[in-house]
């Protein structure tokens, strides 16, 4: 019989043999919606080729991503929730906001469209159609960027989101879409997650295109003054690559089912924040 000590030694050897040197690693907390778009699968290898940096993605909600940045557990974050980002940078956890690209949110719902959202021209009409007809709407309810955006849209049209038609889940985008699909309900999702989602069933996009629904992605390096161990040099290289002509073109030409998902919009450093 194999001795436990042998197994132990073997296991540790294997684990440490696969670990890469920390010098070339940049850990980045990204939001679920960005990761679900599939764009990261294109960007991460290209960054590796061009800069020699291995980008490791921790996929979490915006709230947790910013907490990881605060604690210094990641080197940078890529998020999309303006108010939270500003607070993060103002508190000195991040050095600056760097706009990279935006995509948009869409409302998906049952093809039968009981709330008549398809006919709506602006987001206000679309949402009030759902609330007045009391059609079931599922909300992420997880304090994520998507959830925060959804709440701000409801409050803008003055709808009090309570009652049996409004279901708060406390889940990620994928789980929320799975629930919406199972209940044949409306929900707000980013376009990328939707296009990559494999369990659409009766659901379709019922509303899109209102500028209110644009979703700005921002890259924020974690402040090395607070966390001296962060790989600032690596982070700078990643940021430079993302805003470079090649990075921006790659983002702009990424497509699913013939649709582009992201509009690159990087400019100079937005260090005024």
């Amino acid at each position: 019989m194999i001795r436990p000590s042998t197994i132990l030694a073997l296991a540790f050897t294997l684990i440490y043999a696969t670990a890469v040197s920390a010098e070339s690693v940049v850990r980045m907390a990204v939001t679920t919606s960005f990761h679900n778009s599939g764009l990261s699968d294109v960007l991460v290898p290209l960054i590796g080729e061009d800069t020699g940096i291995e980008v490791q993605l921790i996929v979490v909600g915006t709230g947790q991503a910013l907490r990881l940045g605060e604690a210094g557990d990641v080197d940078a974050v890529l998020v999309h929730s303006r108010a939270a980002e500003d607070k993060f940078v103002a508190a000195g956890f991040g050095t600056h906001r760097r706009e990279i690209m935006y995509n948009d949110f869409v409302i998906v719902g049952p093809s039968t469209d009981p709330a008549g959202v398809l006919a709506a021209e602006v987001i206000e009409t679309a949402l009030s159609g759902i609330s007045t007809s009391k059609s079931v709407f599922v909300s992420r309810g997880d304090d994520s960027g998507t959830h925060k955006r959804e709440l701000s849209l409801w409050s803008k049209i003055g709808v009090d989101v309570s009652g049996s038609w409004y279901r708060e889940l406390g889940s990620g985008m994928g789980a929320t879409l799975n629930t919406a699909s199972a209940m044949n309900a409306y929900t707000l999702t980013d376009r990328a997650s939707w296009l990559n989602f494999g369990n659409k069933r009766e659901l379709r996009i019922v509303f899109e295109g209102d500028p209110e629904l644009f979703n700005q992605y921002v890259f924020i390096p974690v402040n090395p003054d607070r966390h001296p161990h962060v790989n600032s040099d690596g982070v700078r290289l990643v940021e430079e690559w993302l805003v470079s002509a090649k990075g921006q073109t790659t983002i702009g030409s990424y497509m699913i089912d013939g649709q582009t998902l992201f509009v690159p919009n990087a400019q100079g450093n937005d260090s005024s924040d």
Partner: protein
Amino acid sequence: MSEFWEGISSAFWLIITLDADLVDITIRSLQVTVTAVVIGAALGIPLAAWLTVNRFRYRRTTVAILNALMGLPPVVVGLIVYLLLSRSGPFGVFGLLFTPTAMIIAQVIIVTPLIASVAHQALRDLWADYHDLLISLNTTRWQRIKTLAWDARRSLLTATLAGFGRAIGEIGAIMIVGGNIDHVTRVLTTAIALETSKGNFALALGLGFILIGMAIAINIAIHWVSGTERRGRW
């Protein structure tokens, strides 16, 4: 139901083509879990033996706590280990967060009480059998522990396998402390959660079948190696 059959067929194709990502995450699942279970057994079994042969004031309380810890919610363990290993936590300087080592630490905390508790039940029964004889033979405490552990070795193996079963299917803790980083800390369970969130039920289910199959295969292999099958006594 169609997803069920697609799941089986995707599991089948992943295996026969030896899909590189599948091999990668399967090996990592085994590395993390086997290491955690070996450490858990190395801590839990001596603890169980010690609790068996010693009479001390708070022994019952200790055993009760141990039994309660068997049901520790992994998510809570994950959160606590995260807070400890975070750069802002007490052990942050070691930079262990989001590494396989962090996942092993979390799983050790999850499986050790389980292994210790199951082992303690087995050793306690055997001790009730052997008590008078071992006292009569003037055995030292250490000799008693060795005798009980050796004669209960099959039950101890079962306890260890119970730990393996809990660890290999665990996700709550390792998701938090491992971060599910592709090629670094992604294991079968976190990959299943990821594919489920993308709505790729067939692939998720396929990975699930592979996980279940692997757990069964390892149980059978270990029982076979230790010869328990032939003895007909588990």
